[in-house]
């Protein structure tokens, strides 16, 4: 036996001893999902960036003494300086304050829209996919109606009826966004329903809700989570374009989209990079971090990947 082999066997013996003593088994305590997530570096990086931006927006008043809507006509389009970290815009509003306060609205609209839509989509989709039959047929047609309806028209109608507000934008995002998630949840449940462990639960006669939402849903969730994060990212940008058309959040309210839209002219683009660059970077970072986190969460919920 060579030296290397000896060492190898020694190591094996040690592992076996530990296993017999039950040390290794005990070490695995704690949530498997959590340890999986923690070991995913990209996801952790995403989580850190997300948390920083999120907390900065929430605690905006502590980070800046400026108000986002206060106009200062003595300081028009000033580049970044000690007083104004991100500079000021065309009417002299502090951009740092606007980015922070704008984040509040943008995150609320995009997050609320995506999560609200996901909640409806997942609940309806998984139960319809699980049960099938008339429930499935009705909800399927319903989702097709919502999908085929042009979003812009819907927004116009909503704005005329209920007026322009942040809340309406969220409602519109929920209404137009749920059907994608619904279809995904339904499709996943359709295939999971045929798995034998589900049949085994039927053989015990367990409650439908319990089988559907507790036992089956976790296995359908991973692609849905990715879709939700993509939705959040898309909604942030969509809110910007709706606001630009004057259909979204009122123009005077600071949002990431409104800040970007205000800089959409050649002069600003060429001469005042501080108006569009910082907010662009923040949007990109935020969207990217959400995607990383979503990817990480997907991996933790995917049981075929071991932690």
């Amino acid at each position: 036996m060579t030296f290397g082999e000896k060492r190898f066997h020694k190591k094996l013996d040690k592992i076996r001893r530990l296993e017999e003593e039950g040390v290794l088994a005990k070490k695995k305590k704690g949530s498997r999902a959590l340890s999986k997530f923690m070991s995913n570096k990209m996801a952790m990086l995403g989580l850190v960036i997300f948390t920083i931006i999120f907390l900065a927006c929430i605690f905006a008043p502590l980070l800046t003494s400026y108000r986002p809507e206060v106009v200062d006509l003595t300081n028009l389009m000033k580049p970044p300086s000690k007083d104004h970290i991100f500079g000021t815009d065309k009417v002299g509003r502090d951009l740092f304050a606007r980015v922070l306060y704008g984040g509040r609205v943008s995150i609320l609209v995009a997050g609320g829209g995506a999560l609200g839509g996901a909640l409806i989509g997942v609940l309806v989709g998984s139960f319809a996919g699980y049960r099938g039959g008339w429930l499935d047929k009705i909800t399927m047609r319903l989702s097709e109606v919502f999908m085929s309806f042009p979003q812009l028209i819907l927004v116009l109608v909503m704005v005329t009826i209920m007026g322009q507000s942040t809340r309406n934008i969220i409602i519109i995002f929920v209404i137009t966004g749920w059907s994608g998630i619904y279809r995904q949840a339904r499709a996943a449940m359709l295939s999971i329903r045929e798995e034998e462990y589900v049949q085994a639960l039927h053989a015990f006669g367990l409650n439908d809700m319990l089988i559907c939402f507790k036992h089956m849903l976790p296995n359908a969730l991973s692609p849905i989570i990715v879709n939700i994060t993509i939705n959040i990212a898309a909604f942030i940008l969509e809110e910007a374009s709706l606001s630009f058309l004057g259909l979204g959040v009122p123009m005077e309210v600071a949002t990431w989209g409104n800040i970007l839209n205000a800089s959409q002219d050649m002069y600003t683009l060429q001469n005042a990079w501080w108006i569009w660059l910082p907010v662009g970077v923040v949007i990109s970072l935020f969207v990217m971090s959400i995607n990383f986190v979503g990817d990480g969460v997907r991996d933790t919920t995917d049981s075929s990947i071991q932690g």
Partner: protein
Amino acid sequence: MSEKRNPILTLRNMQVHFPVKGKKAVVKAVDGIDLVVYEGETLGLVGESGCGKTTLGKATLQLIRPTGGEAIFEFADGPQDLRKMSNKELDKARKEMQIVFQDPQSSLNPSFTIFQSMSDPLKKFGVKSKEERRKIVGDLLEEVNMQREYMDRYPTEFSGGQRQRIGIARALLINPRLIVCDEAVSALDVSIQAQVLNLLNKLKEERGLTYIFISHDLSVIEYISDRVAVMYLGKIMEIADADALYQEAMHPYTKALLSAIPVADIDHHKKRILLEGDVPSPMNMPSGCRFHTRCSQCQQICKEKVPEMKTYTIGGREHMVACHFSDEAYRNMEQQ
């Protein structure tokens, strides 16, 4: 098995028909099955793929509701027709009957630990405290030759044979009397098959279980079964004690099946009976005897008349065959 036998399950003219979308046709997956399962026996159910074995197994448990016939289960308080029971009343039957599935990959929930996935059924059947549930699951795992600690592991951490044993443990969770093993060893390799079959036999002895063992593997069926039923296109062709069937099959279909078992002997030159063609579609059944399209002994009568199930007593044991020429086969046997 000549002592007095109590039936535990009696199927009478059981039918499972599936409507075909867009057409007027029906798929007759199970088409009039009469079968008695006796307490404490292992009834093997063999047949080609697509002959309705699995559907019959699931219909017995009412996982698929049969469209016709009766399924009478002998409960402690007398026999009852499962088909007439509502979903809620069936809980009573679920305590008595369970199922072991074919595919060890999909028979366990991948995102739950073993204990988590077994916990809810136990809760439903009245085991409220968590300690008690953990004890039951642990005891069961030990009974299927696994460590108690495994209950906190996820299915991905087990091999196919281990998962299958966990599947068996799950079927035993609420102490059923009858277990349907649906191709329970087909997905395993041979050495593991033997291990699982021996485990099933051990459990049967210890707990006095009754099995309906569904398989397409004739050697497995011979090894584990007391009696064997041969199925073809949704109907039973022949039922007999396992050794009688393997020695003296009377139905041409059974003979053809048995001749296909490989024998590990170079000098063994058994005549193979080759079946021509494919199994006919269960949507469009052949007239008369449903085997006549492929039978080597097919006569005019086979195309016209459906053969009745006839019962013979050979050596004091029942042997049932559905073939127009079973009398001849019986006479031949007598002469030998």
